[in-house]
């Protein structure tokens, strides 16, 4: 860390002028007639995009910036690239900067790829001679030899970006500023981009990297800055910083899901209430027509398995349409589910979990009259309606004996080894003959976040072993 700093920011702030209605279409006429020229050019209202951000990027370091949308990442990037000037604070960038902000910016559609490369290169600060010398290399890198003399307007967007990237990396900057550009282009090209960036890093160049792909940031960066609302939330080791960011995202997502859950539950129970009131004239039949119209479930196996069967049995009528018309909640209501929540290991209500965490599903029920024939079931589904897991008290070996009043049922899954993604929980209470009292589809929704990029719904704990003449190293 004795290397001189390549980018030093001290108390960096940037505010934008807010384009209120009065300023949206500023005209010279109104400026001269109205508040006067100076007033028209002076910022009236400002938005703080970045406030008091300080950091130092050492030479040869790969520095990542993460944060939610609108946190000031792009502003910081544009400041480092020299496109914008800070409103306050100091920013020092040593060496030539090349910004991969928008690849192929400045290509003119009417002229050939070759000519555009030359012009783009000069724009990015090369001399004509340098760019002429590098031209074959750039063309080869872009893989567009065949089309290089065609006008750029005939290129596909992928070709456009490839050519733009090829020029930008051949400018040979000291500081490379990379924004989300890797999101475009095909897989092969994305790999080549990453290789190139890794190569830059090996050659001791400084890289300023902004991405929403946290895994990529973790992989590439030596240090990470986490921005939120224009302020530094965390700065340092990628693992720690990203963990902090992920936690915040999960917390926010959890809060959102909890809010949605509350809302949904409220709507649902209100709807039920209304329905019950409407059906009060003919009690007992209220649920019947709805039931018949929707699903003949009486003779069906436990509800969790029902859907799986529907999807796989060819005899089942149009599973898709079936899904559309499937009601969210049905049953005789001899036992009613009055609430469903998800809890973490500390017993707090949560709807966002890390893969492998302990999860408890809590069902509150109230019987219309005391009864002794009941089974509680849960099912976890993906949004595509794939059953991840389904079980009930019967299958897990419980015999019901009495339910005399409002009760709470909790089922804990000590390690929820699910992959990243959203999931739905169905909860149900039905008779041992599988006549539903209350079946609630999608009673809860939750989000699972996994620390790695492994694929699939199931994310078990893994242990690798290698034998023979083989060597691998931990990254």
């Amino acid at each position: 860390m004795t290397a001189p700093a390549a980018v030093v920011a001290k108390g960096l702030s940037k505010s934008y002028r807010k384009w209120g209605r009065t300023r949206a279409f500023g005209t010279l006429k109104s400026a001269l007639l109205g508040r006067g020229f100076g007033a028209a050019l002076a910022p009236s209202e400002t938005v703080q995009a970045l406030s008091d951000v300080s950091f130092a990027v050492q030479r040869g370091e790969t520095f990542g910036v993460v944060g939610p949308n609108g946190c000031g990442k792009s502003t910081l990037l544009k400041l480092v690239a020299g496109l914008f000037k800070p409103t306050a604070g100091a920013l020092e960038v040593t060496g030539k900067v090349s910004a991969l902000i928008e690849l192929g910016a400045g290509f003119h559609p009417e002229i050939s790829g070759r000519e555009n490369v030359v012009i783009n290169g000069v724009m990015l600060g090369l001399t004509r001679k340098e760019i002429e010398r590098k031209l074959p290399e750039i063309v080869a890198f872009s893989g567009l030899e065949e089309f290089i003399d065609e006008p750029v307007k005939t290129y596909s967007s992928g070709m456009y970006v490839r050519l733009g990237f090829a020029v930008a990396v051949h400018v040979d900057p000291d500081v490379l500023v990379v924004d989300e550009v890797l999101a475009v282009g095909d897989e092969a090209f994305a790999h080549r981009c990453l290789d190139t960036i890794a190569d830059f890093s090996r050659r001791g160049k400084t890289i300023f990297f902004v991405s929403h792909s946290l895994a990529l940031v973790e992989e590439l960066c030596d240090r990470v800055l986490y921005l939120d609302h224009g302020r530094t939330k965390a700065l340092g080791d990628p693992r720690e910083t990203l963990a902090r960011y992920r936690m915040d995202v999960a917390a926010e997502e959890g809060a959102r899901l909890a809010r949605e859950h509350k809302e949904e539950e409220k709507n649902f129970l209100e709807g039920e209430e209304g329905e019950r009131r409407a059906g009060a004239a003919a009690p007992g039949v209220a649920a019947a027509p709805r039931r018949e119209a929707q699903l003949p479930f009486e003779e069906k196996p436990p509800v969790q398995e029902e859907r799986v069967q529907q999807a796989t049995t060819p005899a089942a009528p149009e599973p898709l349409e079936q899904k559309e018309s499937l009601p969210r909640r049905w049953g005789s209501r001899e036992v009613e589910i009055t609430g469903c929540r998800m809890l973490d290991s500390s017993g707090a209500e949560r709807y966002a979990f890390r893969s492998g965490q302990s999860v408890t599903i809590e069902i509150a029920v109230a019987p219309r009259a005391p009864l002794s024939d009941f089974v509680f079931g849960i099912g976890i589904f993906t949004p595509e309606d794939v059953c991840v897991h389904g079980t009930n008290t019967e299958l897990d070996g419980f015999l019901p004996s009495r339910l005399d009043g409002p009760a709470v049922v909790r089922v804990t899954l000590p390690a929820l080894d699910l992959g990243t993604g959203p999931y739905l929980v169905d909860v149900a209470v039905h008779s041992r003959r599988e006549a539903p009292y209350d079946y609630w589809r999608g009673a809860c929704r939750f989000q699972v976040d996994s620390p790695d990029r492994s694929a699939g719904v199931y994310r078990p704990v893994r242990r690798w072993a290698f034998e023979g003449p083989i060597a691998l190293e931990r990254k």
Partner: protein
Amino acid sequence: MLKNLAGLWRHRALVGVLVSRELKARYRGSVLGFFWSLLNPLLMLAVYSVVFAFIFPGRTASTSPYALFLFTGLLPWNWLAGGLTDAASSLTTHGALLKKILFPAEVLPLVAVVAQGVHFILALPVLAAGLALGAAGVLGPAVPVGWPLVQAVPLFLLEGVFVAGVGLLLAALTVHFRDVKDILATGLSLWFFATPVLYALPDIRSERLRAALLWNPATPFFEAWRDAFFRAAWVAPERWGVLVLISLGAFLLGYAFFDRLRDSFPEAV
């Protein structure tokens, strides 16, 4: 500002490639290609010749043959008007560049002015042909042609500097006030009549009007163009002094204004 001004010279390669891009892009896909820039003034010359020979005849002696007289004024005027129009919209049309690439913004209006200057130069063969015909007396009374023609070179440079200065000012204004383009269109047609393009300044009988027209910064340029191309007269040193003052003044003023607003461009375009 002075540092930026000094840096301008370093951007000459960029101006060069962008001007050639501008011209290539303009003529690519057209059948006649660069010939268009020749054809345009040629058509103009033909139309004006017909109009002023047969429809509005009866010019003063100082402006005949009128077609040639007009042509010697219209060429530099077209450069001025075209250059200012293109320069004014240069930043807003190429806004993507300013937002995405670290790019010296002043290059854009300069490119617009230089590209229009190239059109001017490309029309010179037509002017030469006109002058040859005029000297031979084909178009009317014989026109004197001689060494004063070389004054076109410094005049060209001075007008370029002048147009660039005003163009920089307009470009910076257009970023913040989108109606500058419309105002400019109207302003240019007024300016056209206030500039001795259709007429010669000495022909104006009203002393006061003539004095008023001398306040027009473009007037000295057009009088000088006429001296070089049409009257074969040498422009007096003090008039050169005025031209240098006007062009440098306009440039420094325009550049200073542009430089003041420079930092606001990437956000505002």
